[in-house]
């Protein structure tokens, strides 16, 4: 540096002189500090200014702090967070006006948005206005009507017509040769449970069948689900070996079942395909290109070797369930058969010419709907019919469909006579299905056309004849078929399968003809009246249902205040929320050393028949029962008392019989036996735990308060108390407390279920309640085979003189101490009513 040049400060007489040189490390360290502080400032601006105050003048607007929309968009979120920290709530997003929301386009967008997470049925909006909706199996389903319709729905199912939407059942289409299908399904089911999938009575496509599915080769355990199926009728007999089959699966079991089907038939998804590239030279190894479909309407799987195809048809059909004798009238009133002489019916016409005395499908259907009750038709019959648009068949007001006049065809003749052709239907054809829903006239269009053309209100118009007919499949459901079990023909009805998009039109017509809509609750109540269990406890659906129900019960139990909870330890109930089938089977196992096998429900028809004979007619108890099977029984209380699900089924002792006879003599309705109260050892523990926990929380709080005080003495600003952060502590305490409230897990110790109370437990009730059909409290339960054997042996010893005495067992609810006698019988037809 040259010293001649006058420096600023020194030249003016100041005392600061610039150094002649700079040490680089000092300089660098200074710069480093500067950069650090700059970065820190950029990351955490320490300016006390608000965002809008930092803006340059030309970007400022009036009332900016009040209205964040006046800020540039990139500052809005920061502004909002600043304002909310300061305690001033920023302007909330106002809900758009109702007028805006209800504009058709916006409404539709909203509906589409809401369906992204969960599926809707086509009748969803109709139901959502009238029903309590719940989320089940990936759908939003109606549970029960908002009106009190419990008894009304029973009456509808018994005497009128109950209508339910079961479109949530998913349809799986299988395509292949009969032999392949028979062999494949032979691995998934057992001939003991009933007819196979390729039984002659189903193969023609005239009847719908049901089949018990198991995991591949695991029968009798590993049950999946009871599925119903129908074959596509052959258009030209023996012309094509490929046959089509529809399986109707419950949504809870779809995934498990399809994975089993994929495994058994060795199917591959068609979403990703490997296509071989043309080989350029021979010595090169073959090269492939992977072709991925971006969007698949229906998931499909294929096996190239056998030609087997599987397709999951989601939301392709509407399936409505009509229950009750009047469903005949409702259907007859709302379906008018469409008659035309076009080419589509040519095949059935040819067949009709061959045999004149048989009715074709349409006539047969009309005649069948004239009968008094659906149970007079062949059970599980499938009818195919083309009807005119159901919107044209509505009454002007909601009216009860009246009984038709006496039919021309005798019911017994109709039962034994078959329609001329099997039920061909356009619904089986995927292209026709697409065309059907594409060409459907919207209700809006229909209304506009009516406005234009209808001169006299309520009269039919000319354009209505041009509306396309819709193909329907009607499936008869026989309901109760055993007169000695439940009322004959109860819950008989029809299932209607309609193409997609026609759901609402058909639904409204059925409702207008007086059908009573029901929800999921009505499935349970109809099953209870029928004395069947839709979801057996070892199936996928049954396990899922039991888990959900137990969670609900547990949550409800711990929502109650402690003095309203019943103490299951005192009541000697081991598993208050779900039936511990596995532990029950383990306790009744005779050979204790064997490894625990999973329980299963006895479905073998011949074995059930032998058991039934043994219970009714005192025959020898069959020996070949395995230890880990459960037997479904129907229970009926014939004195006082109520029954809930998860009640205990117990073996009566000799003392109980004695008291029972005495009570019968004196017409005494008291419970036969009352469980003595146990003492609860945990009561003191709970009290100590609670007190300790409270004390701990109090101490922690006091510590925080002291800390705050200490800070307050030195601080100039306002000091807030430190947040508690005891969430983990509290939740830990809750789980500990819950475990102290509940009895110990039954899986831990041996004999904990069987000898949990003063009577030996050999079964559990799965669903129960008051049955209007029987005018008694009825339920369905499951008992172990060895327990049943012991009960029968005890009966032989005790009631030797009273031979007409029906088989009785003891029942006790999980929340009560009273034991009562109940009658016991075996249900032979496990798949009834599915």
């Amino acid at each position, binding site marked *: 540096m040259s010293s001649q040049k006058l420096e600023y400060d020194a030249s003016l007489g100041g005392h600061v002189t610039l150094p002649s040189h700079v040490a680089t490390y000092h300089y660098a360290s200074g710069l480093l500090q500067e950069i650090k502080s700059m970065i820190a400032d950029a990351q955490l601006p320490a300016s006390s200014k608000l965002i809008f105050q930092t803006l340059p003048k030309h970007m400022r607007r009036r009332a900016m702090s009040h209205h964040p929309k006046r800020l540039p968009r990139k500052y809005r979120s920061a502004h909002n967070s600043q304002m909310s920290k300061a305690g001033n709530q920023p302007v909330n997003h106002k809900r758009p006006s109702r007028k805006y929301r209800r504009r058709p386009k916006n409404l539709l967008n909203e509906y589409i948005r809401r369906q992204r997470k969960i599926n809707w049925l086509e009748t969803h909006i109709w139901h959502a206005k009238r029903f309590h909706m719940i989320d089940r199996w990936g759908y939003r389903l109606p549970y029960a009507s908002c009106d009190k319709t419990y008894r009304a729905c029973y009456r509808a199912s018994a005497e009128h017509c109950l209508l339910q939407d079961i479109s949530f059942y998913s349809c799986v289409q299988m395509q292949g040769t009969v032999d392949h299908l028979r062999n494949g399904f032979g691995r998934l089911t057992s*001939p003991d449970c009933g*007819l*196979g999938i*390729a*039984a*002659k*009575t189903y193969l023609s496509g005239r*009847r719908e069948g049901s089949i018990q599915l198991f995991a591949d080769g695991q029968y009798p355990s590993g049950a999946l689900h009871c599925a119903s199926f129908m074959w596509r009728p052959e258009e030209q007999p023996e012309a094509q070996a490929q046959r089509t089959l529809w399986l109707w699966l419950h949504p809870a079991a779809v995934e498990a079942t399809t994975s089993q089907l994929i495994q058994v038939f060795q199917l591959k998804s068609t979403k990703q395909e490997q296509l071989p590239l043309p080989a350029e030279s021979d010595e090169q190894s073959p090269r492939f290109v992977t072709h991925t479909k971006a969007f698949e309407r229906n998931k499909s799987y294929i096996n190239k070797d056998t030609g087997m195809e599987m397709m999951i048809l989601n939301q392709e059909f509407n399936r409505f369930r009509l229950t009750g004798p009047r469903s005949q009238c409702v259907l007859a009133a709302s379906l008018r058969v469409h008659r035309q002489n076009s080419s589509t019916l040519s095949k059935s016409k040819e067949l009709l010419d061959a045999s004149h005395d048989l009715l074709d499908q349409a006539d047969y259907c009309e005649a069948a709907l004239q009968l*008094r*009750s659906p*149970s*007079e038709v*062949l*059970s599980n019959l499938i009818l195919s019919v083309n009807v005119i648009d159901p919107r044209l068949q509505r009454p002007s007001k909601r009216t009860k469909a009246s*009984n038709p*006049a*006496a*039919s021309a065809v*005798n*019911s*017994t003749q109709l*039962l*034994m006579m*078959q329609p001329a052709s099997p039920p061909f239907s356009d619904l089986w054809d995927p292209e026709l299905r697409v065309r059907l829903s594409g060409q459907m006239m919207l209700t809006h269009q229909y209304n506009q056309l009516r406005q234009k053309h209808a001169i006299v209100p309520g009269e039919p118009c000319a354009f209505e004849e041009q509306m396309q007919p819709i193909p329907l499949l009607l499936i008869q459901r*026989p309901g109760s*078929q055993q*007169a000695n079990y439940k*009322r*004959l*023909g109860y819950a008989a009805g029809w299932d209607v399968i309609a193409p997609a998009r026609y759901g609402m039109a058909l639904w409204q017509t059925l409702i207008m003809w007086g059908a009573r809509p029901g929800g999921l609750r009505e499935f349970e109540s109809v099953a209870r009246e029928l004395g069947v269990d839709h979801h057996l406890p070892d199936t996928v659906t049954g396990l899922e249902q039991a888990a959900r129900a137990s969670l609900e019960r547990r949550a409800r139990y711990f929502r109650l205040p402690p003095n309203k909870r019943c103490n299951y330890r005192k009541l000697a109930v081991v598993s208050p929320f779900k039936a511990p089938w596995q532990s029950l089977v383990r306790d009744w196992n005779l050979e204790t050393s064997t490894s625990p096998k999973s329980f299963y429900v006895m479905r073998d*028809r011949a074995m059930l028949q032998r058991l039934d*004979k043994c219970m009714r*007619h005192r025959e020898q108890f069959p020996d070949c029962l395995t230890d880990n099977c459960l037997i479904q029984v129907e229970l009926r209380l014939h004195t006082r008392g109520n029954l809930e699900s998860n009640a205990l089924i117990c073996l009566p002792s000799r003392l109980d019989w004695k008291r029972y006879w005495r009570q019968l003599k004196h017409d005494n309705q008291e419970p036969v036996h009352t469980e003595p109260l146990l003492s609860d050892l945990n009561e003191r523990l709970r009290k100590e735990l609670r007190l300790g926990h409270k004390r701990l929380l109090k101490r922690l709080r006091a510590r925080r308060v002291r800390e705050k005080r200490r800070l307050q003495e030195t601080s100039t600003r306002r000091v807030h108390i430190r947040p508690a952060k005891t969430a983990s502590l509290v939740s830990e305490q809750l789980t500990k407390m819950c475990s102290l409230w509940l009895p110990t897990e039954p899986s831990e110790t041996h004999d904990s279920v069987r000898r949990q109370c003063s009577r030996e437990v050999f079964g559990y009730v799965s669903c129960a309640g008051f049955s209007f059909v029987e005018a008694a409290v009825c339920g369905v339960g499951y008992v172990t085979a060895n327990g049943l054997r012991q009960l029968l042996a005890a009966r032989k010893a005790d009631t030797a003189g009273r031979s007409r005495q029906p088989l009785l067992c003891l029942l006790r609810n999980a929340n009560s101490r009273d034991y009562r006698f109940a009658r016991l019988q075996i249900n032979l037809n496990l798949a009834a009513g599915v």
Partner: protein
Amino acid sequence: MDSNSTERGAKPRNNRNRQQSQRVVRKLPPRVANDKRNNIYITSKTDFKAQQKRCEDLLNAGAKEIFLHCMGYSITRGLNLALRLIDNSEGALSYAINTSTINLVDELHPLCDEDDITYRQRNNSALHIKIFNNNLFDIVVPKLPAQTNYTEASSKKPQKKQK
């Protein structure tokens, strides 16, 4: 269809000892098509007292006549009920009885895959009891015998007796 050969004959008294190759499924017994209120079907399950009360209520409500239909096992119950009603009425009621035979069809469901469904036709005897008010002050044009338009019974008309 050829496979659907019908089997004629009476319902076996008990099929306990028979080797069962088929599952028998009963159909609902046929009912009158016009379901008026004054047709009462006697079952073996319904409480006797309840049925008696139902008939008495109908008669007290002003019904001129009621019809009791009973079939097979419940015939005795029907007769008992009719006699009880008439006994209790102290001469206000009288009765007329028709007998008929009813065709019933049972479905026989197969238990093995190779068979198709078959039917069994059988007959059952039925009784139709008309109970009417023989009040002297009512001028009623007598309509005897009772014409029940039983769809099944009227087509056959096997033996009709008047008591």
